[in-house]
């Protein structure tokens, strides 16, 4: 496993993305774990890293000089996001709607607008028993953490295996998170919910032409629509992890299973080898 970037995604939330990414990073010889679920980051709760640095993330926010603004409303007309309005003789900015494109400044004939930085969150980096841990945190109330994800992905460095913990869903945040991935691991639950969202996220990967395999988690006897989906659509099943109360308890206390138990360590070492092989085969197939 040398220098590959593996992304963990799921569509549905709570299927075990963080559980897999954290445990696999912990058995890899030299690993970087990046938590791109900046809305609800949890990886650091498991790693409990000693943070070595933090950096605030800013987005540009327009500011108007009321003394210069003559109320021409060119900016209001231009703004595609309806973030600017003219009311009661003044220009009003709805911060939450602004995407920071800079268009309003460009169309203003009087240079009445300039930009200030607005903090939307931060990234932090540290280490935990040899694993480099990098996490992003979106401030509650902020609409999008795409710029935090972009910043996180510049921190990966080279030479290490990179484990990217994606947000749930199949939105713009996920596409941003998998941009540099060499291989994607889909994590799914044995329910119709799980299978439906597996389908959505699998479509996304096909769109980006990313090789992938699935880990079926929390399996119990009986029907498994996610397994059926994989078999029908030729998604290799990398592992089936049965529902396991002990694993559930370790995980709910944010303990890293492979650091607690030799059996789990062996299970994850085997899974890492399998993923590595799939990723290598995919790279050969691609070139």
């Amino acid at each position: 496993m040398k220098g590959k970037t593996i992304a963990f995604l799921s569509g549905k939330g709570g299927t075990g993305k963080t559980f897999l990414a954290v445990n696999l990073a912990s058995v890899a010889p030299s690993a970087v774990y990046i938590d791109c679920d900046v809305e609800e980051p949890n990886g650091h709760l498991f790693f409990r890293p000693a943070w070595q640095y933090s950096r605030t993330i800013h987005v540009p926010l327009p500011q108007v000089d009321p003394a210069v603004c003559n109320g021409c409303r060119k900016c209001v007309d231009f703004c595609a996001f309806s973030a600017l309005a003219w009311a009661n003789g003044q220009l009003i900015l709805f911060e939450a709607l602004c995407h920071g494109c800079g268009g309003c400044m460009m169309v203003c004939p009087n240079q009445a607008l300039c930009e200030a930085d607005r903090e939307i969150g931060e990234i932090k980096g540290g280490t935990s028993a040899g694993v480099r841990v990098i996490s992003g945190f979106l401030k509650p109330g902020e609409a999008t953490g795409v710029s935090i994800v972009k910043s996180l992905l510049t921190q990966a460095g080279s030479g290490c295996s990179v484990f990217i913990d994606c947000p749930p869903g199949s939105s713009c945040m996920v596409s941003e998170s998998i941009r540099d991935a060499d291989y994607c691991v889909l994590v799914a639950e044995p329910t119709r919910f799980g299978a439906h969202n597996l389908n959505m996220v699998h479509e996304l990967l096909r769109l980006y032409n990313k090789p992938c395999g699935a880990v079926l988690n929390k399996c119990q006897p009986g029907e498994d629509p996610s397994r059926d989906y994989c078999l029908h659509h030729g998604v290799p099943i990398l592992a089936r992890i049965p529902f396991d109360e002990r694993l559930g308890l370790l995980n709910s206390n944010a303990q890293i299973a492979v650091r607690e138990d030799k059996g789990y360590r062996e299970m994850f070492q085997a899974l890492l080898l399998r993923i590595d092989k799939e990723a290598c085969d995919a790279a050969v197939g691609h070139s």
Partner: protein
Amino acid sequence: MRQLVILSGKGGTGKTTVAGAFIRLSETRACADCDVDAPNLHLVNVAYPLRDDEPYYALPLADIDPALCVSCGECHSICRFDAIIPGGPYRVNDHSCEGCGVCALVCSVGAIHMKPHHAGNMTLYKKENAVFSTAELKMGSGTSGLLVSQVKKRMNAVVEGDIPFSVVDGSPGIGCPVIATLSGADVTLIVAEPSLSGISDLERIVKTARGFGTQVAVCVNKADINPARTRQIQEYCKREGLFFVGCIPYDPLAVVAVNRGVTIADIQCPSGNAAAEVYRRLLPVITQRSH
């Protein structure tokens, strides 16, 4: 009509399972699935004979006419979303483009226009005078907040008569779709999970919800997986003055229900009974009879 919104912060805690049960228990005639990135409610909230589909157009995206592009690179250097792919001619990455129109503004040869962007589909399910509004965003699309607002608007536009409250299922996280879901919510039920991750995520969604003047209530799903963490959530709610509505146990039959396409309120199971108890306790708050 009051609005009950079901959120969780963390994914996979059981929002949709609880929402499905509440729709069945309340027999409400208005409900919606606002988890447009991964909608699932339609898989258990069935039996609406009528279906009405409509495409969802998000903000128009930039499109470069290859015949006119002179590859000057102006658009590439001005775009703040890394959405322009250099080359001869330049191209637009639809998944990164946010539709601001700045590239079209600066293009000196008029090669860039904004083209309609079919970003998803909205569906209204109907039966007699009941409505269920849902939507699915296309993979990799942005602006999910806008679609969430549309889903709610479509639900509100067609409800007839006096309905005490609607039930709205939300998405995980705290970002734009959640913010759009919270807007207009009278009561927010947060389905929490008894884990360290679940508690961290609960605190973040509570912080987010507080900005919206909605009443916040909390229940714990799969409570018996970690009783100590469940108690911790109860204590947190007490400290923060949040209404703790009760616990739902881990229940393998919940999986069986989902896979049969029914809610946990439709079959005899421990999680269904517990959800009914949570519903009974929350009802006065939803209908604002008392707290």
